[in-house]
Structure formats: C-alpha cells, structure tokens
C-alpha cells in the first residue's frame, strides 16, 4: 500500500529534499511510524514526547484536517493524499 505524503519545507532535510514521498500505513499513527522508519527522526519532529501530534502542526487527509476526523486514529486509504503543514499567521 502506498500513500502520498506532502512534506513541508522545514522537514525536507529529513527526506533528502523530497517534497512528496510515498509510505504506507492504515491510519495516521501507523503512517507516522512508517515515515519515521524511512526517514529516521521524523516522528520526534512532528510528535511531542507523549507521542501526540504537536499542537502547531496540521495534518490533512485529502482536504480535511484530521482534527475534524478522528485525529491520529483516522483511517487512511491507498489513494489518499496526506499533507503535513505548519500553522501560519492570520491576515
């Protein structure tokens, strides 16, 4: 199974400059685990010490924020596209 994940600029150092990577996973948690396996250190960056996604990071599955779905237990399907995006200022 392969899911496309958009990598934000501050994390592209970990992915060797790639802005789009393909990993596998059945939900957000296992996807992050697979990202960490392929790109060591990834999980520490986007999750805090308790393993929760950091509060300044937004994860979207297709166009929906996972906080409107089931958070890190949200299921992911093969054709889904995941984006990891840092919070940005108002305007």
């Amino acid at each position: 199974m392969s899911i496309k994940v958009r990598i934000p600029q501050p994390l592209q150092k970990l992915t060797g400059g790639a802005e789009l990577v393909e990993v596998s996973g059945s939900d957000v948690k296992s996807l992050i685990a697979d990202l960490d396996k392929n790109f060591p250190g990834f999980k520490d960056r986007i999750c805090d010490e308790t393993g929760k996604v950091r509060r300044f990071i937004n994860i979207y599955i297709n166009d929906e924020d996972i906080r409107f779905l089931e958070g890190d237990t949200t299921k992911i399907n093969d054709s889904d596209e995941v984006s990891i995006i840092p919070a940005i200022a108002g305007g």
Partner: protein
Amino acid sequence: MSYIKGLKCRECGREYPKEALYVCEYCFGSLEVTYDYEKIRKHLTKEKIENRKKNMWRYRELLPIEGEPTDGLNSGFTPLIKADNLAKVLGVKELYVKDDSVCPPTLSFKDRVVAVALSRAKELGFKTVACASTGNLANAVASHAAVAGLESYIFIPADLELGKVIGTLIYAPNLMMVEGNYDEVNRLCSEIAGKYKWAFVNINIRPYYAEGSKTYGFEIAEQLGWRTPDHLVAPCAGGSLITKIWKSFKEFHKLGFIPEVKTKMYAAQAEGCAPIVNAIKERSEIIKPVKPRTIAKSLAIGNPADGYYAMGVVKESGGWAESVTDDEIVEGIKLLASTQGIFTETAGGVTVAVTKKLIEQGVIPKNESIVISITGNGLKTQEAVQNKIGKPAKIKPTLKSFEEEVKV
C-alpha cells in the same frame, strides 16, 4: 542601526539567524524576533519618541529592521478617542477607542504589519511579496507593494466582501481568488511558499511582520500619557494582535517608559468562529479548530496559529473572553457609528459588542479605564449592514414633496 539579536523559537527556545525563517525545524513552534534591550535602553527615551514624526516608525528601535524604514512612512499614529458618548450608553466612566479604521493608507491595522514586513523583505533581498488574506492584509500588501515597486501575489477566499476585492485590485497586484475558506487559502499558500522564493508576509516573513502590531499598543500607552488602560478588548482571528499588544506594553515597562502593566486583556470573537474564546471559556488546554460561519470575515480563521499565545495573554493578564452573534455584531457597528461617528467593519462590531456584553456581565467594572480596539473600516464590509440600516426617503426635487415626506 540594528537592534535585532536574532530569531528564537517560542516553544523550545532554539535560536536561529535573522533570516526569512518562520518555524522551528525541531518542534514547529513559531519564531519570534529577539532584541538587544540594553542597546535600545541606551538610545531610546520617551522624549525622543515624542519629538519624532507622528507615524508608527517613531518606535523604530523596537521594530525588526536593520536600516532605515522604507515602507508605510505615513502609517500608524491613529487617534485614541475618548469615547464619552459611547461610555454614557454603556454606563462606564472612562472609555477610549483606538481607531485604526483611519490608518493610512488602506484603513486597517494591517498597514502597520505590512510596513514592517516590506521594509524587512527588501533588506532580505526579496523582489516579490505575497500573502494569504481575509481582506485587510490583501489591501495593505497590494498598496504598499505598489508604492515600493515590488511585484505582489495575493490570495483571498472567494467569498470575500466586494469592498475588499476592489480595494485590492485597484493597486493591480496578481490577485488569486481561491475557492475555499481562509484556512484553505492558508494551507495552499504554505505549500506555494515552500516552492517559490517570495516574501510571504504572513508565512516566511511572519516573525518580522507580526512585530508591526506592537505599534498599535505602543501608541495606546503613549496616547494615554505613558500608561496602559485597566482593560483592553482586542479582536482575535489568528490571535497575533492581542499577543503583540501585550508584548508592546511589557516592552515599554521593561524600558521604564510606563509603570507596571496591570491591564486585563479580553479576547473578542464572533460566535460563528470562536475557537480561542471557546477554549478560554471552557478552561480547555486545547484549541479545537472550527469551520467559520460568520459575517465577521476578517476574523474568520478557524485554525488560529497564535491561538495558544492569545489564550496565554488572556490568562496571564487576568482577563477573559467573549463571543457575539452576527446580529450583535451589526448592533455593535451601529452603536459605534451613532455614538462616536466611527464606521467600523465587522471586526470592530465584534469588539464593541463584546465590550458591551462584558460590562453587562459585570466582568469589566464600570469605574475603570477601558480601551476598545477598532482595527478596520466599515466602508470595506458594507454587505454586513446594507439591509439593516433603513433606506433613504425618495422625494421629488420640490419643496412640496419634501414637506410631504418630512412632518416637522
């Protein structure tokens, strides 16, 4: 002369050079400018400020640029009005309105942040500026970029008020109307910002940009005679403004310009988009994003980037938070117009209505000083009040027709 030390993560404290960076690579916390306050203390005095031109750059040492300011040279130093008529209606003793509905040149507080962002973007070598906007920022970036001769790319949600669209297009920027709400525009822009080497004022220039809001607070303190009010009500969208007003008061105190800051800070939002207010009222540690549904489009940010800091300021200051319905927002706009002659946009309707509510609840006492933040102009959001302010009497150009209409 430069007074900037560098950038620092607001979460983990890691330090970064003063470049076009905006999030901590390690924890994704936002970066904030740090200053050499010892050096500022040596060069800046109250008297020096008072003798400078009446614009936001009179506080230049406390703003994050290295050379001389180049943009927004007439922005800021808007009136702080003693609002006695409104005070009478609300039954309070000492009430002021800080009126950025007349901030030059685009009639909102966003001229302040853009003045700093563009001055800094040029120092960093950028030739193109960009922003994601709910309208006021779009107006300000387009205007200031036109003056500076910079190319601009501006991204707005498709349902924006006509006044804000025209108020942007008049400056001939590259205007992109995105089919989606502001949070979706933001998301798109953060992807574009990663790919194109532009100065996105509220993304990669954000640490510098956001500091411009401090001038709104500096002015309040100076105009009150070098003191801060007992209570200050500020609108919250992304949550940055209230945070920076608080920072401005703290900085003035640190420099010895004002006594200890005892101001209570109040966050104001529309009921249809109140993630910060709800978290404060529910005493929750988590700010839950919402999908905005309100006429206050300039505050319609469902996923506020600075929400946690805004919440922190409210708690630290001993203030509180409140939200109001769309009808209350319209009443707030009308109340400010009928008492003080100021026509504010929906965000101003929110702060006026929230102030009224907090006074009625007894949260804000009646015998202490209060400042209401008015951050934008009503001519930009006419749709919000169009059908709620009566109609003109239509008459023929004859005395008879007039006298039939008006029973004096």
